[in-house]
């Protein structure tokens, strides 16, 4: 009997202590982050390590993986198509991302004022982005730029947009620029947070709206511009669907996106080991690119901005 009571006491003591620990800030932090910690281990880290292992193997998905050391990585750098794909993707990201951010900013400036019809305007400009990289949009785009497609019909042109090495990539860039909606929304919400008192003070000083833009709006927006650039660049370097469905990398590999090449190697040609190696190289490239962007931050991003 006695021992039972003692046991009970001990139990409540434990409970209390557990409760106290649970209430501590450091514990609470871990508890709140637990989903991510588990998720990262289960759905990201393990697959990632597996893919690292596969990148050191000859692996055709269907059969067994056979360890071959760093051979795949050596092959990557000797592979002309790798360099081609890297170049194409780099060009795509470097051109389309700034354009996309620029358009988003311009339209956001247009749509920041609240009139009755503004929600409708916003919907109009955001609609293309809603469709994302869906199959339907890719096919729509392909048909618009077909030789007998909408664009040639409207402008009376005879250009095989998707068949010429110097135009095909621009068609895909245009698609990316067309979908500037999410960046635009981020700009709109930030523009709204700029206190109107700043503009009033400037008006008292006799500044016109162009000066306002360059002296107040733009500096305050630089952190948002930076955020958009980083996010869009990452997405840009990983672009896949539009290349796969619209051009399939043609003509002459002029739209062979890196992720597409990786996918083809993995699934179409059953070189999953090589595909994984390509993937790891891409991770390094994305990380480097992001790091470089962050390095430039101190030169043009206004720290006190929104």
């Amino acid at each position, binding site marked *: 009997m006695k021992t039972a009571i003692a046991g009970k006491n001990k139990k409540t003591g434990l409970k209390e202590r557990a409760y106290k620990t649970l209430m501590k800030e450091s514990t609470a*932090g871990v508890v709140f982050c637990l989903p991510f910690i588990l998720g990262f281990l289960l759905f990201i880290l393990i697959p990632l390590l597996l893919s690292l292992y*596969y990148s050191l193997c000859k692996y055709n*998905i269907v059969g067994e993986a056979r360890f071959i050391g760093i051979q795949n990585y050596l092959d990557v750098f000797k592979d002309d198509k790798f360099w081609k794909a890297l170049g194409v993707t780099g060009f795509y990201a470097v051109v389309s991302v700034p354009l996309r951010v620029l358009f988003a900013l311009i339209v956001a400036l247009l749509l920041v004022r609240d009139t009755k019809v503004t929600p409708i305007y916003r919907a109009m400009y955001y609609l293309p982005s809603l469709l994302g990289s869906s199959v339907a949009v890719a*096919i729509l785009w392909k048909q618009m730029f077909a030789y007998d497609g909408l664009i040639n019909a409207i402008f009376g042109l005879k250009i095989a947009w998707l068949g010429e090495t110097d135009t095909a990539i621009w068609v895909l860039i245009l698609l990316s620029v067309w979908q500037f909606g999410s960046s635009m929304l981020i700009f709109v919400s930030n523009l709204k947070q700029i206190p109107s008192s700043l503009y009033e003070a400037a008006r008292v000083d006799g500044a016109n709206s162009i000066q306002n833009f360059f002296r107040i709006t733009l500096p305050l927006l630089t952190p948002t511009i930076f955020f958009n650039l980083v996010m869009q660049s990452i997405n840009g370097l990983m672009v896949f669907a539009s290349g796969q469905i619209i051009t399939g990398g043609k003509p002459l590999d002029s739209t062979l996106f890196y992720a597409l090449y990786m996918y083809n190697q*993995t699934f179409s040609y059953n070189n*999953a080991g090589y595909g994984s190696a390509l993937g790891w190289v891409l991770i390094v490239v994305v990380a480097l690119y992001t790091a470089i962007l962050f390095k430039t931050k101190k030169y043009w991003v206004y720290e006190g901005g929104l």
Partner: protein
Amino acid sequence: MARKKRRKVVYHILTMLCGFIMIYPLIWMVCSSLKESGTIFLTASELIPRNITFENFINGWQGFSKVTFGVFIKNTFLVAIIAMALTVASSALVAYGLARLRFKGKNLLFALVLLTMMLPGEIVMIPRYLWFNKLGWVNTYLPMTVPCAFAIQGFMVYQMKNFIEGLPRELNEAAKIDGCSYYSIFTRIILPLLKPAMGTVAIFSFINNWNDYMSPLLYLKNVPKYTVSLALKLFCDQSSTSDYGAMFAMAVVSLIPVILIFIFCQRYLVEGISTQGLKG
């Protein structure tokens, strides 16, 4: 005054015109879906169909091997809604932890969140597939939904974290003095204020899942389980004939839910997005 009015008119005309150009391709798609399938590309430059026909919608709706398009829509809805709810819930938890609580390893965790944004999906596709297969999840919707309960979409967590950081800290302190635990601060104070950001994340997540194509392709193994994007692709097999009329018609149908969601949640989209340090 007159000048101001003129500027206003110019503004509206300009915005409307550009907006029209933006959505012209979509209008074209809608109109094309009403044309006879054989004439879509012959009359590409004409917007208004010569004969309006619903044949494409009827053909498309029939779907494949006796599974109608309605089934695909139902499946996609199921996946997208569950995934959306889980994403919102888990991202909110993690975002709060990262934004407001101090604990060991927080910076590392945040770096990992950022890392998930930088991972090309294709690289973990095969390992993840094999892994889910071990769990017996292939040919179920689990691979598309369960991971969402673990906040592994960095972008969503990042958005919410920024939003929470923008909320005034004083509320926190006041609540703490009142004896609230960190858990009840989250449920009583943060959650109600977090609604706009949750709305934003909900929309992004819904749209992502609605359009997702690779996971259904890998994981769903029979037609009655297919989702909309998989079914749409089936209309245009490169190695045999494609029915573009039906494809466009069903593409239009598949856009309706996305557009509806957008219209109802538009408000949140602007309010809910926020970068660091606002109202500071």
